[in-house]
């Protein structure tokens, strides 16, 4: 389980960084998305991997805290997802504006001289 999760985070982060370094804005934005998926999974995993345990305390308080998952990373992930969603949407708008103004989707605003 740990191996699969850490490999998934690693592959996502590596592909994200590779795409970030590409010259087209579309590749950059897909790279940023992959990177934020990796980050979200990482935060989630940092609350320890707990199988089949709810993060919510039952009415009347804890009976056995070890039977429950840590709720805080889940709240943090939710915040991070919302923020990265918003910033990605905003980036998309800037990207489209730049495409319209410069006429190219190169991150430098111009094609490289051949």
């Amino acid at each position, binding site marked *: 389980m740990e191996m699969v999760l850490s490999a998934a985070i690693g592959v996502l982060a590596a592909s994200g960084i590779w795409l*970030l370094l590409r010259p087209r*804005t579309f590749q*950059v934005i897909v790279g*940023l998305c992959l*990177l*934020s998926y*990796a*980050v979200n999974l*990482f*935060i989630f995993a*940092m*609350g*320890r991997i707990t199988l089949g345990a709810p993060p919510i305390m039952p009415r009347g308080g804890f009976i056995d805290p070890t039977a429950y998952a840590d709720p*805080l*990373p889940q709240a*943090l992930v939710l*915040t*991070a997802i919302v*923020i*990265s969603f*918003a*910033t*990605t949407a*905003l*980036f998309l708008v*800037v*990207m489209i*504006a*730049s495409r319209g*103004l*410069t006429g190219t989707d190169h*991150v*430098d*605003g111009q094609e490289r001289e051949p």
Partner: protein
Amino acid sequence: MTHWIIAPVVLPALVAALMVVALRHSLALQRAASIVSILALNAIAVALLASATQTGPEAYFLGNWPAPFGIVLVLDRLSAMMVLLLTGLALPVVLYAVGSGWDAKGAHFHPLLQFLLMGIAGAFLTGDAFNLFVFFEVLLIASYGLMIHGGTRDRTRAGIQYVAFNLVGSSLFLIALATIYAVTGTLNMADLAEKLPTLPDGDAALIRVAAVMLIMVFAIKGALVPLQFWLPGTYANAPGVVASMFAVMTKVGAYATLRFGTLIFPTTLPATGPLVAEMLLPAALLTLAIGAIGILGATTLPRLVAMAAIASMGTAFIAIAAFTPATTSAALYYILHSTLATAALFLVADLVTRRRTDGMLTAQSPIAQSGLIGALFMVAAIAIAGMPPLSGFIGKLLILDAWRDHAATVWTAILVSTFLTILGLSRAGSTLFWKSQATAGDAPKPKPEPLAFAAVFALLAGLAALTILAGPVTRWLDATAASLYDPAPYIAATKLYQDRADAP
């Protein structure tokens, strides 16, 4: 004072929302609301500063949840000072935006400015590391909008690079925070300060990794080499008035480095030791060198000012990197000075650029009001280069004095770079204002804009006040720096939670 602590965050948020919803169609009303809001913020910031000076650190428990389970805002001398610096800078900037008509060149300038104020004030006040990330995002999202305000081709292209760079920075911030949470189980800054020294040795490596990543994030914000690449393009292409407001955004990086370096990763912490300081000093020296060389090499006026901003961040980080009370006091003085000086120089550069066809540092036909603007440029240039009689000189003197033990490297770097800065600025000034006199032709004649000039005068008056009141200010800053190295009252303030009878 309890509820006033959150006012610098809530007030701009409400005003911005009001502007977007109700005042969307009237620029005049938006301007009035924006100026009134910033005046009120200034009054609140002064009151908070007085309160922090008299009673020491004070915590505000959001939602009345006890720390470390809820989020706290903590008002101490440092955060109160930074909030006052922010609101004090915002007033001339908004006056300049109104006076020069920048705010009419695109939609939603004033709401975005208010959201930027909200984010920066929140970043200064928060006592929770994850909340710091959230406020960073708030200020960044507002800054993305301001950066491409009135978008032209070059501005939008620079905007893409700025947004991409900062989105990567945000990812890095989250990874660092998650690592810290995995090790300590808390993200409350005061709680972290208590828990980190008691960690088992096995976790030290993870904490070091997290510390390095956090400092990298703050270095992106503070434009520290090798993470400064976003700054010249962004500041040079952003509207002049926005670049001027951004002068305080790099200081968020400096503030966060100072806060984390003294409260959470002090040099006495076994896990990190002097790691943070050892990383910062070479980077800061390089930043200063690159900034100074950039000033000499710049071909446009806005880029020259952006390079001066990088050089001033280098100087500030040199002072921060020592992590002793004396150097921190010097760093705080220099941060106050360089924010106002950089902002003033950006505004003057904007005055020049809008009176010419472009910002190139070449002799063109003389600009309107050349004498007055030339004088303003000279005063701002003296301030940013650190020549007497203005506060830049006192700031650099304080830093040199505090670094007396390492005269060989630090003194050489600061003195040589100051010389290069003077050289670059005087060359730019003589080309712009003197050589241009010999060139024939008619430059664009904008209509008189007394409010814009008043804003520049206000910033320069702030620098003059900082110079004249250097004695009382440095005494106050000495006490502030001392309080940073004695975090017990800060930590105690977050524990003062009482379960109120009226709480649900």
